[in-house]
């Protein structure tokens, strides 16, 4: 063990200079983890969207008249439902990534405690984890969009690319608040409720499968305040190529605000939990 001698040898070990450089130190961790686990979800992340598009969009859509007046401007049910399902996919990916896995790193394998025993700060740990979540959203949504392209539901290439970036924003808007929520939970028993009473109603009633004007008036009002509706509507505008700019700006502002609020809440909740 000559190398350990003397132990106070040139201290290359340093404190990170800012939030980003700290989070960047966790890159290798997430990269190695992803390399080990990506296969587990690869098939389903490709097959799931394909099945949904064929079943709901093509087959069920075959029984629905392509009336733009009833479909928020889409000329076929397939073109209407496709962007809705991409946005919903962005959301469900996030729900999966920031519930049980975050709880695991805090409570079960305690990896976070190892991380903050190093020079890294809680906010850097959170940023790196959220960065990974957004990466997951990016890959699943990119696959989804690619799968749907041959069905002829997109009007322009630029629209598709814009829609892709909107998915990242939707992902972030869900990721930070739910992360914060998880960070303060004692155990995982609340998660089944989060999925059943949070994610599934959002998935089904936020305008992904039918225009929210089909809901009763107060349900419609409720749907317009959900983040997924903002995401779905924005995505749909872009893929249909009919952008209502002022409304689009509202959607973006809403999602950005939610992301930031969730971020500060997350940092506060996790710090309180881990550094006490």
């Amino acid at each position: 063990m000559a190398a350990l001698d003397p132990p106070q040898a040139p201290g290359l070990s340093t404190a990170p200079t800012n939030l980003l450089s700290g989070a960047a130190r966790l890159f290798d961790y997430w990269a190695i983890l992803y390399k080990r686990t990506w296969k587990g979800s690869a098939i389903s992340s490709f097959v799931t969207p394909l099945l949904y598009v064929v079943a709901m969009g093509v087959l069920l859509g075959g029984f629905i008249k392509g009336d733009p007046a009833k479909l928020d401007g889409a000329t076929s049910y397939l073109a209407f439902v496709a962007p809705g399902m991409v946005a919903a996919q962005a959301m469900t990916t996030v729900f999966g990534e920031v519930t049980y896995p975050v709880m695991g790193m805090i409570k079960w394998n305690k990896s976070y405690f190892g991380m903050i025993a190093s020079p890294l700060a809680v906010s850097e740990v959170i940023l790196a984890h959220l960065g990974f979540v957004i990466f997951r959203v990016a890959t699943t949504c990119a696959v989804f969009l690619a799968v749907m392209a041959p069905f002829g539901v997109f009007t322009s290439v630029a629209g598709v690319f814009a829609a892709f970036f909107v998915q990242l924003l939707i992902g972030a808007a869900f990721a930070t608040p739910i992360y914060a929520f998880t960070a303060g939970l004692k155990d995982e028993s609340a998660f089944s409720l989060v999925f059943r009473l949070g994610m599934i109603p959002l998935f089904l009633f936020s305008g992904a499968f039918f225009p929210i004007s089909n809901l009763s008036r107060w349900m419609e009002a409720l749907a317009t305040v959900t983040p997924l509706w903002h995401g779905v509507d924005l995505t749909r505008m872009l893929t249909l190529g009919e952008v209502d700019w002022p409304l689009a700006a509202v959607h973006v502002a809403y999602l950005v605000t939610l992301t930031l609020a969730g971020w500060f809440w997350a940092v506060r909740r996790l710090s309180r939990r881990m550094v006490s």
Partner: protein
Amino acid sequence: MILARGLRKSFGDFEAVKGIDVDVRRGEAFGFLGPNGAGKSSTMRMVAAVSPVSGGELRILGMDPAVDGPSIRARVGVCPQEDTLDTELTVRDNLYVYGRYFGLPRKEVRSRVDELLEFVQLTEKSGSMVEDLSGGMKRRLTIARSLINRPDVLLLDEPTTGLDPQARHVVWDRLFRLKQQGVTLVLTTHYMDEAEQLCDRLVVMDKGVIVAEGSPLELIRAHSTREVAELRFGVGEHDAIAEKVSDLGDRVEVLPDRLLVYSEDGEEVIAKVHERGLQPAAVLVRRSTLEDVFLRLTGRTLVD
């Protein structure tokens, strides 16, 4: 290396550490002894700069943890009580990613990982998943991980709790080598043999305060006698006999199955017991240990 004056830690109304003074010098092995709930782990977490100080003063490597937390953590190694290894990664990857947290270049980390695997005798296991390791191997891996930044101070919170005797000895052996190499060790334990083996100096904590301080030998001298005579009589006789022999030692303690007579000369105690016509079923003379000191200072009552 570590300096604490009137250090306090409270969680709400509960005061875990009630004002302690500690000096840890470069190159020494310093121990915190105490029963569960004595405040050892709270102290360690403050020293590791992951838990804010509630009161008093604390300096680690001359820095204030409230201001320079990350810089302190860059130069301290931490081996926590519960393993926080990443069970989804291999042995090698655990060390590698951890090294990266310290801002070390990839190449440098790789060479350190090889060295450390060698040091903790896990080279053959480098490709295994953490889940498949035994308790002792996990502990050694945690220790290796805490050395990845070549720390000036290594903090070990109950390093051998839950290990079998063989595994404990391997860990002790590695820690002893580190000490020889000049690494400052700070450890908590409730194993007296561990404290006697490893520590140059130690403090005994109980209910958040320091109740004794010194080298193992000094503590035994100050708080116990040189020898202990253990006498066994029939069940139920011990209380009555204790009265009869109470003058033979500095102190007599009655346990359910035996009497302990603390004295400078154990053989002499035995001889006198026989002189008084008492016939113990079994006798044993042994040297006082830290365990005697510990129980004397913190009591025999179970603390949970």
